[in-house]
């Protein structure tokens, strides 16, 4: 049985851990608010962008010569996966959920005999994947320095992807990220960005008789690279909101567990203190009796 001193030390240490987790929870909550705001504010842009591209691709005159970013290279041999994770840990199942989703996708791909290439964004994803897929990872990116998710970071990733695509390094590109649903629920998602897949069935057959200036093809070839950066940016925003949400609930749990532990330890401490006093009393009494 641990001595009174040991118990006391443990209580103190659990209490200080609790202080830390509580502080982290507060910080995550504050950051969550901001991340959620920007995720919501960023939505109109990507939605609009998607809509315009959908309209355009319906209107495009010769489908044969359509930009490859839209239609794909024709084969599906090489898959590029972009895994978006966080740079910091202590956020519950946030990173492992994405990795789990990605890994099952990887297995499917390799089973079909296709080549796999991976880009990791965020250092945690790289840490978790390097053991199994080290030779597949062609690039690891981390935005530790930038405080907030900003568009320029996304653009960097986007430009890199496009460059690789133009060099015929891959045929299909998929991004993995966590979609923010609410504080407790984040849904790991995969989204194919090259070739572009319209996520919703377009029943919005509005007579979109647009005038184009310059030609459709030219607009489209300008728009598509931008759309890729935009999609990545959207994923990054969703991801950062999810990260904070996940961290907040993880830290909330940790704080609660620490509280329970302190209660348990305190009871144990009090019991053994009382036992020690009783023992001492018995010793005195029996000592006096034997005289």
């Amino acid at each position, binding site marked *: 049985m641990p001595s009174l001193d040991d118990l006391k030390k443990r209580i103190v240490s659990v209490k200080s851990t609790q202080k830390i987790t509580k502080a982290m929870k507060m910080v995550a909550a504050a950051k969550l608010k901001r991340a959620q705001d920007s995720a919501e504010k960023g939505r*109109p842009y990507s939605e609009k962008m998607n809509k*315009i591209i959908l309209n355009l691709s319906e209107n495009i005159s010769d489908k044969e010569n359509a930009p490859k970013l839209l239609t794909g290279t024709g084969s599906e041999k090489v898959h590029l996966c972009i895994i978006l994770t966080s740079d910091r840990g202590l956020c519950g199942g946030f990173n492992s959920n994405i990795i789990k989703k990605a890994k099952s996708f990887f297995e499917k791909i390799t089973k079909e005999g296709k080549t796999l290439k991976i880009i990791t964004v965020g250092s945690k994803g790289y840490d978790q994947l390097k053991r199994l897929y080290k030779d597949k990872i062609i690039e690891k990116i981390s935005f530790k320095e930038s405080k907030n998710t900003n*568009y320029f970071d996304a653009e960097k990733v986007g430009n890199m992807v496009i460059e690789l695509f133009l060099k015929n390094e891959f045929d299909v590109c998929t991004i993995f990220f966590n979609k923010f649903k609410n504080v407790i629920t984040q849904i790991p998602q995969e989204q194919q960005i090259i070739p572009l897949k319209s996520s919703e069935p377009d029943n919005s057959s509005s007579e979109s008789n647009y005038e184009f*200036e310059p030609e459709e093809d030219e*607009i489209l070839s300008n728009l598509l690279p931008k759309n890729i950066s935009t999609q990545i940016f959207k994923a990054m925003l969703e991801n950062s909101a999810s990260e904070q949400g996940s961290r907040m609930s993880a830290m909330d749990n940790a704080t609660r567990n620490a509280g329970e532990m302190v209660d348990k330890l305190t009871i144990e401490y009090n019991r053994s203190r009382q036992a020690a006093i009783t023992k001492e009393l018995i010793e005195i009494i029996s000592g006096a009796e034997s005289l």
Partner: protein
Amino acid sequence: MSELFNLEIVNPEKSFLSADDVKEVVVPAYEGEMGILKNHISIISFLKPGIMKIYRNNAEEKFYIEDGILEFKDDTLSILTSTVIKLDKLDKSFIDNSIQEAEKSLLKEGITDQQRFLISQKIDSLKSIGAN
């Protein structure tokens, strides 16, 4: 009948401006400046760096806009852009920095004629802003 239409300017981080009392917008479209009034035909076009003018409440507002797409449909003009700054909020150091950066990227090898055109447009319009 009112002569006003809706305008929405969105950049990746937020909705920059949203108004429903716009009389006219002049944008630097890729193939030249374009003025848009109510009941314009549906159009999609993209922008080159330059100055966008918005007329509303009997006043003129000017913005520096870097690139983007514009869509006009059902009397709503949507402009998607990565950079949009109100002209009087543009400071000298930003202009100088952007010009320097643009000039540097102009020297890079392997840029296409189209990129070259857009970058020189950017430098020109920034310089003209700086001169005023």
